[in-house]
């Protein structure tokens, strides 16, 4: 009898914990954790475990202002690659990042991870937003 009560109380506690998380928070967590794995598989070799980049060869992913100002472009970079020069943390970088073979949902997940790690805090970038951005890519 006593153990039954313990189990019921436990279940109520679990239910409360989950209901405390808003749907938005749950969606964010899903994107973020899936994005972690995508980052490790596709981005980390060049951009580094902490998004630190590599000297002047590969730009870091820690410039929150740059990421904020280029929110739409980030999707285009991942989808089509970039060639040319850009300024990150006030330092010039030039070269090429190859286009990725990531699907729109994968792009959304990895962008959610990057833009909320390494000192960045931009919130969820969901599939719908990525699809909208893709339409705006040149």
């Amino acid at each position: 009898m006593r153990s039954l009560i313990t189990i019921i109380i436990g279940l109520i506690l679990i239910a409360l914990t989950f209901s405390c998380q808003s749907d938005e928070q749950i969606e964010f967590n899903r994107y973020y954790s899936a994005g972690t794995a995508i980052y490790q598989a596709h981005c980390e070799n060049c951009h580094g475990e902490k998004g630190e980049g590599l000297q002047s060869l590969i730009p870091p992913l820690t410039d929150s202002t740059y990421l904020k100002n280029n929110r739409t472009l980030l999707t285009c970079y991942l989808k089509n690659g970039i060639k040319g020069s850009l300024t990150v943390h006030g330092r010039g970088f030039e070269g090429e990042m190859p286009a990725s073979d990531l699907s729109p949902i994968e792009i959304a997940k990895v962008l959610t991870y990057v833009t909320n790690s390494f000192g960045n805090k931009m919130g969820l970038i969901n599939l719908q937003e990525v699809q909208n951005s893709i339409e705006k890519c040149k």
Partner: protein
Amino acid sequence: MKNLIGALIIIVLYSSCKSKDQAKLPILGEREPVTKTIDGKTVTDTVYSTIPDFKFVNQYADTITGKSLNGKIYVADFFFTTCPSICPIMHRNMLNVYKEFKNDDNFRIISHSIDPKYDTVPVLKKYADKLGISGNTWWLLNGTKDQTYQIAKNYLVSVQEKNPQGEYIHDGYFILVDKQKHLRGTYDGTDPEQVTKLIADIKILKAEPVMTVAK
């Protein structure tokens, strides 16, 4: 009492083996016994394969041959400047080796480009600048594809067991070579832990008396 003596012997044997392992690196590669006659006595010696001479050009357009590395410990790897996969992580790790030994004139790093058509001397120089390396510690080398493939074979002939497909061209290994041009170790350049071991092994090699031969 007998048991105690037995235990002592085992402990002494074990600890002597252990210290030997830590202090010496094996010589990798082919070996063959050579019998010579010295002062009327027949002596059998073991001859280990060495890296044969080569000729490449570095990022300063200087010609680099086997002679340039005489009396130096060096680490070799293979890369290309536009490599999007494992090269950045390899050279992120190699930078740690560079920083550790950049003031040691008896140490070199040589990175062979496997894309000599694109990676010309100015391209290599630019890459070196962007990587933040200067001086003569780390040479980025350009040679013909044939030369580069050949030298890759020489470095990795001893590590075939790790690489049965013959994918030596881009396997991410760092090769440690001693002052006598013997292969002394191979390390996965994409694994920071193995690169830490490489740095430790270089220190062991530096402390090794000249001309000793591991048995």
